């Protein structure tokens, strides 16, 4: 029911996979198991994926929840423009990154998880979603217009003084219409 934003979920998955890849890589390198070079690659790829995926994108509809301290990374990721905005690029990038992890047991879990994240990103891209940065709204304070500051220099337009003088003998003839409509206070 309703439109689901797949990119949000893909982002969480990619971040988690980055961490899993990193952990697996650390275990592989620390244990010096066979093929530990793949584990070292896993560490580097894991760190890269975590940094790329940490800043959460803005939701198309509704309020976006930011991750703590993501502003700096948002600015960095935004700087790459269409490369990071487009989810097709991210899907293929993650698919490419995950392949070397599959050659070593310690990093194979990270590989599988990143592959799944890449598939969900592909789905999000097909549905036309895009990464938009969450930036704080800049408050624009409007300068007050000049006329507000200064009092009016001319009195309001009125008929000449002799016309305004009260003429008791001809009350009806002395009536005039105000050129500018005047609203009296209503009870």
């Amino acid at each position, binding site marked *: *029911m*309703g439109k*689901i*934003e797949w990119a*949000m*979920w893909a982002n*969480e*998955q990619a971040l*988690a*996979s980055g961490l*899993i890849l990193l*952990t*697996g890589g650390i*275990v592989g390198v620390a*244990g010096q*198991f*066979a093929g530990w070079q793949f584990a070292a690659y896993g560490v580097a790829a894991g760190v890269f994926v975590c940094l790329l995926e940490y800043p*959460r994108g803005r*939701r198309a509809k*509704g*309020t976006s*929840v930011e991750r703590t301290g993501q502003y700096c990374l948002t600015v960095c990721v935004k700087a790459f423009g269409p490369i990071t905005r487009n989810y097709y690029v991210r899907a293929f990038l993650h698919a490419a990154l995950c392949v070397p992890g599959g050659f070593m*047991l*310690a990093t*194979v*879990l990270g590989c*599988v*998880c990143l592959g*799944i994240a890449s598939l969900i990103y592909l789905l999000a891209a097909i549905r036309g979603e895009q990464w938009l940065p969450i930036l704080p709204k800049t408050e624009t304070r409007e300068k007050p217009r000049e006329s507000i500051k200064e009092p009016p220099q001319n009195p309001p337009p009125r008929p000449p003084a002799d016309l305004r003088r009260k003429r008791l003998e001809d009350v009806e003839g002395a009536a005039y219409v105000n050129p500018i409509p005047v609203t009296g206070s209503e009870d």
Partner: protein
Amino acid sequence: MAVSWRSWTANEGAKHIVLWLSANTVLFWKTFTLYCYGPQYYYLYKMLGLGLCLSRASAAVLNLNCCLVLLPMCRAVLAILRGSQKVMSRKARRLLDKSKTFHVACGVAICLFSVVHVSAHLANVYSFSLLYSEEFPSLNIARHKGEVSWCVCFAVPGVTGVLLVFILFLMFTASSHGIRVCSYEIFWYTHNLFVVFYMVLLVHVAGGALKYQTNVEDHPPGCLGSNWTGGSDNVCRAEPHFQAHFPQTWLWVSGPLCLYCAERLYRYVRSCGRVTVESVVKHPCGVVEVRMLKSGFTARPGQYIVLNCPSVSSFECHPFTLTTCPTGTEATFGIHMRVLGDWTERFVELLLSEDSAETETLPVVQRRTYPKFYVDGPFGSSSEDVFNYEVSLCVAGGIGVTPFAGVLRALMGDWQHYKLRRLYFVWVCRELGSFYWFADLLCGLHQKLWQENRPDYLNIQLYLSKTEALQVCVGRQYQALSARLQVGRPRWPELLDDIGKSNKDKRVGVFCCGPKGISKALHQLCNSGRSCGTTFEYNKESFG
């Protein structure tokens, strides 16, 4: 400071968290030392080292948490426990309010210890391969020394383990706060994969990869071989015999799993009963009241029900607090539903759809066809405890007033028989129209209490938080409410001080159902402890 400590312990206590943490720590430590120093694991430990102890200790903690994680989700059982006042003390009932937090804590523990478990087993796989034991071939998993670690992984525990991690990964990534806010469906559908998780878990532990030595007396570990010619006491009398464990996880997990399945079955059977809609009333500010009838339905004020309407969405279930509970005389029950989101929009559309064909013919018999829907519940919430304090403060924000509406209606029926002696009711809304949802009820109760000579029983305070472009104009029949209406947000410290001064040395139950800002501010104030010796016990309403 003594007062604030009392307030803190009343609110946070946290004895139960300490209990859970210590259970986990003790279990981890005991299993770790067993595998490190136990004689039956001597040879296995020699082969695998630290990886063995870490993997088994984390597996023990995983057993405990997989067992406990299901219990807070047995909502019908919790509702029954909450209702039985003789069995449960108030402290125990307040524990039940934190059931969702406990579920999350167990879930996080499962994820963390899975990471430890998987890492340790990865190291074990390498050790099985590199340190293949020629002496005791039955201890090995690898078929020969230096066997490629991949192949070791294709045994049953390996394949099921990878599948478990995969499911856990999907469930965990979809459970974050951002996803639940953004699209609840992803969270709900992935979380229902727990069934597959448990099935695969039961198969995973049956693999029997790690074996223990059964004949420790005949072959004490480290004893000397039978071809040792020198005289010594420490000679092996027999060859060591290894056997796989009985899968302990089956014992841990089967109980809660059966309880949960039984409960789901009970809830399904209970919710299959027919629901007839009596009336649908449209209220201002996008709220619709639905009154219904269901045979055999009973509920206490403060409980909530879950609606499922197949014509709107086959699988989605939405919780709504009961604003009218069935009583002895009147069997109807009702909810107030705020239209916010696609499910409620569609549901209300179906409820309110007028047959436009009726305008042509004479409306002799106007038959409304309401959509068919199912009601599951009732389930308990912390608002049921309002009656168990002598003095209660109920703070509602907007539509969060619904649990307290049920409470007020119950008081309208019969206020003398409850332990409650004084109720402070604070309702904060953004628009004036929102107060009309329950204006009649509030005025009616106020009037009744004045006539029965208990004017101090109910203290109503209404706040209108939106201060711009205001035109406050309340009807004359709601004079009691307009006199108690204030513009602007309430000042919580002063409010609590007032209540404290009027109720010295008493225990005041604070119930909040509303936006996070209000509940957080109140929670902090309740913990900080005011003067006058009054203790404020904070109870937060949340749909668990």
